[in-house]
C-alpha cells in the first residue's frame, strides 16, 4: 500500500489538482490512482485534474478509458502533461491540454539544450480538424488538411501536403528562418517567429506556396516555381 502511495503525488494548483504519477506499469498506476480516488471520494468529487504521466507512452484508448473512469467519479480530466511526444499527441487528439499554466520546472531543460531536437520532425498522416492543436519542438509535416479552428505550433518548419485553412505558427521560439509550405495556403492566420499575418484571400486556383519572412522581416507567401 505504501508503494502505491509513492506512485502518485497530489498537488494543489490555482485551478485544480495536479496528480503526478511515478514510474511503473500503466495498469498498476491507473489502478493505484483509481483506488486513491475511491478512498478519498469527498476530496476528489468535482475536481479539475491535470495528470503528469512522466514518460509513459499512452494510446487514445488508454487515455480515454481513464478519462471516462474519472468522469464517473465526478472528476474532470483537463490536461495531461508528458515527456513523451506520442502521449502529448494522444492528449491533443482527445482535446486535452498538454501545458498547464505553471510550467514544470524540468520543462525548460528538456527542450533548450537539445539542439538536435529542431532536426526532428513530427509526421501527422491525417486531417487536423477544428479544436486540434499540435505543438512540437521541431518540424511538422501534415499529410492531410489543416481545417479552420485547428492550430499547429512548431519550433521548426511546417509543411502541409493538403489545404491549410487553420492557424500555423512556424519558428515559434523565434526562428526567423522557418518556413511554411502547403499545396493550398488559405489560412485564417500564419505566424513565423514573432510576425503575424492574416491571409484571408481564398484561392481560386490553389497552387503550392511557401511562406517565409522577407529581408525586411515581413511575412510573405510566394508560389512555388519549378526551377
Amino acid at each position, binding site marked *: 500500500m505504501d508503494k502505491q502511495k509513492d506512485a502518485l503525488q497530489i498537488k494543489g494548483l490555482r485551478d485544480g489538482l495536479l496528480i503526478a504519477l511515478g514510474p511503473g506499469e500503466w495498469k498498476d498506476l491507473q489502478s493505484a490512482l483509481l483506488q486513491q480516488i475511491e478512498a478519498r471520494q469527498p476530496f476528489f468529487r468535482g475536481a479539475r485534474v491535470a495528470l503528469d504521466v512522466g514518460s509513459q507512452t499512452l494510446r*487514445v*484508448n488508454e487515455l*480515454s478509458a481513464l478519462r*471516462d473512469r474519472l*468522469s*464517473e467519479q*465526478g472528476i474532470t480530466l483537463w490536461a495531461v502533461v508528458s515527456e513523451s511526444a506520442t502521449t502529448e499527441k494522444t492528449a491533443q*487528439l*482527445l*482535446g486535452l491540454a498538454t501545458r498547464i499554466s505553471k510550467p514544470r520546472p524540468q520543462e525548460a531543460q528538456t527542450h533548450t539544450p537539445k539542439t538536435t531536437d529542431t532536426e526532428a520532425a513530427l509526421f501527422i498522416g*491525417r*486531417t*487536423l*480538424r*477544428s*479544436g*486540434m492543436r499540435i505543438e512540437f519542438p521541431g518540424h511538422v509535416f501534415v499529410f492531410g*488538411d489543416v*481545417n*479552420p*479552428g485547428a492550430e499547429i505550433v512548431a519550433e521548426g518548419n511546417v509543411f502541409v501536403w493538403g489545404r491549410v*485553412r487553420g492557424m500555423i505558427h512556424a519558428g515559434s521560439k523565434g526562428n526567423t528562418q522557418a518556413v511554411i509550405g502547403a499545396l493550398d495556403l488559405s489560412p485564417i492566420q500564419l505566424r513565423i517567429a514573432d510576425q503575424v499575418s492574416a491571409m484571408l484571400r481564398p484561392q481560386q486556383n490553389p497552387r503550392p506556396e511557401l511562406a517565409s519572412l522577407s529581408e525586411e522581416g515581413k511575412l510573405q507567401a510566394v508560389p512555388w516555381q519549378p526551377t
Partner: protein
Amino acid sequence: MSAKIITITSGKGGVGKTTAVANIAVALASDGKKVCCIDGDIGLRNLDVVMGLENRIVYDLVDVIEGRCRLRQAMIRDKRLPELYLIPAAQTRDKSAVSPSDMVRLCDELRPEVDWVLIDSPAGIERGFRNAIAAADEVLVITNPEVSAVRDADRVVGLLEAEGKGAPSLVINRLNPSMVRNHDMLSAEDVLDLLAIPLIGIVPEDESVIVGTNRGTPIALDGKSKAGQAFRNIALRLQGQQVPFLDLDAHDGLWARLQRLTGRK
C-alpha cells in the same frame, strides 16, 4: 432482434438534432421497424415535445439508470405508430446524473427489444455529448450550411475519430437552394469539401418543419413536405438502400456533382 444504435449530434445547438431524431424515428417506424428514441439532453429535454408525447411521461432515463423503474416502464409508446417508443430525459437533473457506461448498459438492455435506437445528443462536446455517443454503433453529425455550424461539426468529427468511433455520416439541414444559387449560403458541396465524411442526407429549409415541431407532429408523417421526404430518404439509406438525393432545384449539375462526391466514398 439486435438493434442498431445511432446517435445524432452536432456540436452547435439549434441546428436540428432533435427534429432529425424525431423525423428519422417516425420514418423508420413507418417502414414497420421497431424504434426507440432516447433523449440524451438531460436537464433540457425536448424530444418529447417535438414528438408530442410530453403529457405521457411518468418515468425517465435517470429513473431507469438509478433503478427506480424498469426499462419497459420508461418507454412511452407513440400514439400514431405502435412500434415507436421514447425514453425521455429527466428535466430536473443534469448531465452528471448519467455516465457513459450507464448509457452502454442501458443500450445493451434495449438491444434485443427493438430494431433501431436513436439517441438525441445535447449540444456541446462535454459530458452529455460523451454520454450520447458512448453506446453508438454509428453516429450522424448534423449541420447547417453556416460557417459556425460547420466549424463545430468539424470539431465533433475530430472527437469522434479520436474516440475510435470511425467516420460519422453527415446530414446537412436547412439548406436553402435559392440562397445557395445567389452565393449567400454555403453549398452542400462546400460543406462536404471541408468535413470530408460520407453524406447521408440533405434536408431543405421548410417552414412546415417548425409547424410540425410546435404541434408535436413530425413532418416525416406528411407525404407532401420536401423536408419530410428528405428525412424518409435518410431512414431508407440507414437501412442500406440506395436512394438518389432529392432534386432541390439548385445549381445546374450540383446534384450530379454531389452524387459523384458521395458515390466516391
